[in-house]
Each structure stands twice: as structure tokens, then as C-alpha cells.
């Protein structure tokens, strides 16, 4: 059998992956016979026949699988499409497998999905808007660097929360712009495309410093929950060094 080539539109193209997985499964194509790629970047020069999506017919899989797959597919791991197709075939065979976390493959895919959920959660917490004046109107603009392809999946959260504002979230993987009624997607951005200051940040740092309790210094928990790679986009982290060194003598007293 010649290997099949599936080309997905985008890194987070779940619908595309699902359609392809269904028709591949309908023709009983085994997982190792499929090459997955996004856009035109060829992942394997020798990959062969494109997949005929016409053979798609409804296939039932447990809701748990769909939930996990939707998340895991956003992971930056290049093998994720293949891993998910592999699991898809096994779940078609035995639907209950998806709940068996002692299974190696389920475990692996579960870990991908957990990492994506965590990234989404961190983005909800760590995006920092800065206000800019644009032809007399305020726009809030944030620069954020997610680990995975979560930008589009995160849009609803920010729209629901900041519906009456106009805002943009810029990331190296793409950008989102909300004008108060419509959401537009834009190309990848660079850090310098966003504003570099906001007057309220000084007040926020004052709060951050005052709410810290030096008698309870415990940087390990802080580092675990707010790893260093996020720091450069969080204005309050610029005062951490002073807080920690200022608190050292006190706790020794």
C-alpha cells in the first residue's frame, strides 16, 4: 500500500484532521501508512497519494476521545496528528480504551492534552493588556508567547470577558483583533509591534509588592506556577528580585 499524505490547513485544524481520520479509517489505512503535514511544508519527501475525503461517513467515537483529541491536537509536538490517528483507530476498535490511563498511548495523548489545557489556563492569567490611543479611541494590546497552538481556542474567553472593549492579542503564531463586535485574525506579530508601557503598571507593581508577605518566602512554588519563560511579558516580575533580597535579612532575624 502506498503511504497516504494528509495536508491540514492550519496547525490547529481539528476539523481537517477529523475528516481525514474518518476517511482513512473507512479505508482501513493503518497509522504507520499516513504522513501528516500542515500547509505546504512537506514533512516527508517520499510521501504518496493524497487522501480522498469523499469516502467520509459518520463514525461514532466516545465524547471523551473527541474532548481529549481537540486539546491534544493544539500541542506543538509534530507527531500529534499521527499519535491521535493511532489512538483513533484503537478507540474505534475498543471505545472504552480512551478512559484507561494506564495504557501507554492514552497516557501520552492525555499528557499532550493536559499541557495544552495548562497553556490555555496560563494564557488566561498572564496576558497583560496595555492601553494605547488610536485616533482618539482606546485599544488594549497584549503581546503573549504561548507554548502551543492555542490562540484561536483562547479567543472566546477574551471575547466573553472584554466584549465591550477593543483589544488585540499579538503572538508569534498569529494575532487576534476584537473591535467590540467582530473578531479578526491577523498574521504572526513581533514583540515590538505592541506598546511597551502602560501607566497603570506602576500601580500594579505597587500592589504586587505590598501583597507579598516576606515572612513566607517560598520561591519554589512561584517558579513552578509562573516559570521563567513567562517573566519577560509580566511587568510585575521586574520587582521580584528586590522583594526576594529585601526579605532575606528579615527572615533571618
Amino acid at each position, binding site marked *: 500500500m502506498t503511504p497516504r499524505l494528509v495536508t491540514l490547513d492550519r496547525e490547529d485544524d481539528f476539523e481537517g484532521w477529523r475528516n481525514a481520520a474518518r476517511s482513512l479509517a473507512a479505508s482501513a489505512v493503518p497509522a504507520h501508512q499516513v504522513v501528516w503535514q500542515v500547509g505546504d511544508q512537506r514533512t516527508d519527501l517520499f510521501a504518496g497519494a493524497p487522501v480522498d475525503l469523499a469516502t467520509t461517513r459518520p463514525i461514532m467515537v466516545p465524547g471523551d476521545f473527541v474532548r481529549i483529541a481537540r486539546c491534544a491536537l493544539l500541542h506543538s509536538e509534530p507527531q500529534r496528528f499521527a499519535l491521535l490517528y493511532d489512538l483513533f483507530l484503537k478507540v474505534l476498535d475498543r471505545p*472504552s*480504551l480512551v*478512559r*484507561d*490511563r*494506564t*495504557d*501507554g498511548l492514552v*497516557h501520552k495523548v492525555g499528557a499532550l492534552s493536559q499541557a495544552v489545557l495548562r497553556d490555555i*489556563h496560563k494564557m*488566561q*492569567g*498572564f*496576558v*497583560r*493588556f*496595555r*492601553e494605547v490611543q488610536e485616533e482618539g479611541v482606546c485599544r*488594549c494590546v*497584549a503581546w503573549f508567547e504561548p507554548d502551543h497552538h492555542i490562540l484561536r481556542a483562547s479567543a472566546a*474567553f477574551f*471575547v*466573553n*470577558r*472584554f*466584549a*465591550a*472593549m477593543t483589544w488585540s492579542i499579538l503572538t508569534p503564531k498569529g494575532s487576534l483583533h476584537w473591535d467590540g463586535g467582530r473578531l479578526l485574525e491577523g498574521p504572526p506579530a513581533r514583540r515590538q509591534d505592541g506598546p511597551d508601557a*502602560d501607566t*497603570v*503598571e*506602576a*500601580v*500594579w507593581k*505597587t*500592589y*504586587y*509588592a*505590598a*501583597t*507579598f*508577605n*516576606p*515572612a*513566607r*518566602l*517560598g*520561591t*519554589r*512554588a*512561584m517558579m*513552578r*506556577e*509562573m516559570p521563567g519563560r513567562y517573566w519577560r511579558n*509580566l511587568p*510585575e516580575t521586574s520587582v*521580584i528580585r528586590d*522583594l*526576594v533580597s529585601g*526579605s532575606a535579612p528579615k527572615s533571618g532575624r
Partner: protein
Amino acid sequence: MAQLDLSEKLAILADAAKYDASCSSSGGARRDSRKGKGIGSTTGAGICHAYTPDGRCISLLKVLLTNSCVFNCQYCINRAGSNVRRARFTVRELVDLTIDFYKRNYIEGLFLSSGIIRDPNYTMEQLIDVARSLRQDHHFHGYIHLKTIPDADPDLVTRAGLHADRVSINVELPTDPGLRDLAPEKSRDRIEGAMGRMRGAIEDGKDARRRFRSAPAFAPAGQSTQMIIGADAATDRDIVSRAATLYDRYGLRRVYYSAFSPIPDAGSALPAGRPPLLREHRLYQSDWMMRFYEFSPDDLAAALDPLSGMLPLDMDPKLAWALRRRDCFPVDINRAPRTLLLRVPGLGPRAVQSILAARRWHTLRLEDVARITVSLTKIRPFIVTADWRPTLLTDRADLAALVRPRATQLDLFSR
């Protein structure tokens, strides 16, 4: 007093509020600002927006309206007799600050509490006015937690629930003598009376929502309380049983513990030192055992040292319990019911769920268990699998030494 600018006020009033352990923004109703004007949403789950070097999460803007107080609670830095700098926000300042922070995605909302100025009713009205203005003038849909003053008029206390997601009334000290000596102006009867009325109001609110969809939400994230640990003579046994009664009687969502911090010019009724921070942590762990691991307060007694009535500091209470109740082990991973699996040190509710799901299809071996737990070494002495049985291990006198965690830097959290 020289005029303070907003930043100076914030520094004082955030500093004064940091002894409140709660910063949780979870448990609220889901809402958003898609329809109409305004700003904000709650997802029900709570989001941490930053972490400070004490390892705690910042979810809410946690401040006092003022740190002036006419009461004189001995343990409190803001008491009337204390020498601290005083500050006070206007309602407007606090509302604007909350919105400014929220718009920039720094916070989930506001946790507002206050020293008592003039009298309890006046103070309560001010607190409610901040929440009212946020909700009505600014259509703020973010999270609001209001600390309420038990001595205020009952309908003021319940009015707080109309604007707030969560309300709290602090019991302050775990024992009656503690409260009498250290907070003579407060009374257990008035505190618990207010908690009881709040429970009633919350339940009525839920009931009304069930019948009329348009009924206003009333404190949808429920009520919580806080106890100060280490300021009075209460043992962990006293604290655990008081907490259990409070959960039971007032339907609380959470009981928070705050380790007593020695303050300048403290009265002689107070201990000179702070309790170990680990003690607070162990109490939270015992709280989780009751809330998520199905231990009853009576079960929990076995984890306490029988003489001192204290939880051990050098290991978590679940492990301490297991070492005292070796007769319950080993637990057969392939056959034991949920409640017994939950008692195995190192197995959390999620791992137990996975075991129950997996064993419907196959018998579990040690390597299967390894995939769903953090440390196999820690749990191995307590379990039986298809390929493993801890021969006599649970009888060894040195078992504690084998499974006791090595000393590590303590990380604290109180969410």
C-alpha cells in the same frame, strides 16, 4: 495627616489585607459581558494572574477599604491601639482601581474587607456601596468577595450577597477562650448567628432561582470563613473538629487558615513567636482529606498525636494516618472499593478514578499504577497488584523512615 496619593494608600491597604488567606475566585456562576455594556466574566474555575515570591497566587485585588478600626483585637495589626499608618480609599477610588486592573487582565475581581470605622453598620454600607457601584454603575461582571461584619444589621449583611459572588464572615479564633481573651468585642454567638442567617439567605436565593429564572443571584459562590492558627491554645484536634462543625452547620465552601504573624507592640496575651508555617499547611491537608478523600472527622483522629492532639509536621496527615492504621493495608488495587483506594498515601482522587476505569478491562500491574501516580516508591508498601505484594513490609517498625519524605523546601499555597 498628610494627603496620601493612590499608590501610597494602595501600598498600606494591600499590606494590611495580606493576612487574609483567601484569594480564591472559584465557585461563582458563569457569566460574561457579551450582551450589552460592561466588562467581565466568571468561568466558575478561578484564574491565577500572578504569583508572588511567597508562592501564593494573586487572583483578586485584595485590599481593605480602610485599616482604621475602632475595635482592638489583640492579634490584629490594624487594631485601635496599634501604631500603624492609616489610610482609607474612597468608594470611587476603589471602584476605578478595580476596573483599571481588570481591564488589563491583572485580576479576576475584588476581595474587599475593612477595619470598622464609626460603627459596623456604617462600614458595611461603605463596603456594599463599592460592590453596588461596580455592578450597577460599571456593569462589572467579574468576581467580588465581600468580607462582612457580623455585628452589622442582619439585612446589611445579607444585602452584601446581592452584589457579591462570595461572602465571608471570619470566626477568627478556633476556641471560645481565645476569642474572649483576644477579641473581646467580638462574640461567637453573633458571628455564628450571622453565618446561620447567611446560609439561610443563600439557600433562599438558590430556591428562588430554581423557581424564577430571573430571580437575582445571591452569593453564588457561597460563604467561607477564616481562623487564625497559633494565636490561642487550640490544638489541631480542636481546629479540625471546629472546622468540621462549621462546614456542617453553615454549609461553608471553605474554611481558611491563617498562621498568626507576631505584630509590633503585641499584648501579653499573645504568643511571642509564630507557629510553624507547616502547621497551617498540614491543617489544609487535613481539610482536603475531609473534602476530597472521604475521611470523616472521626477517621481523621488517628492522624493526630494522641497526647498532644497535633498533626505531625514531618509527614502529611494522610501518611500519618496510614502508618497508625496499618491494619487497613495493604490495599488491593484490583479489588478494593473507592473509599479504601482513596486512603492509600500517594493516590489522589484522579488516580483512583483512573484505577477504577482501567480495572474494568484488565488486571493492574505495578507498571500500570506507575503511569498514573507521581511516586511508585511511596505507595508500593501500601498496595497489592497482580505482580506485587509487600511482604511484611507494613509490619516493619522502620516503615515510617522508608516512606517519610525527605526534608524539602516548603511550598505553601492556600487556594
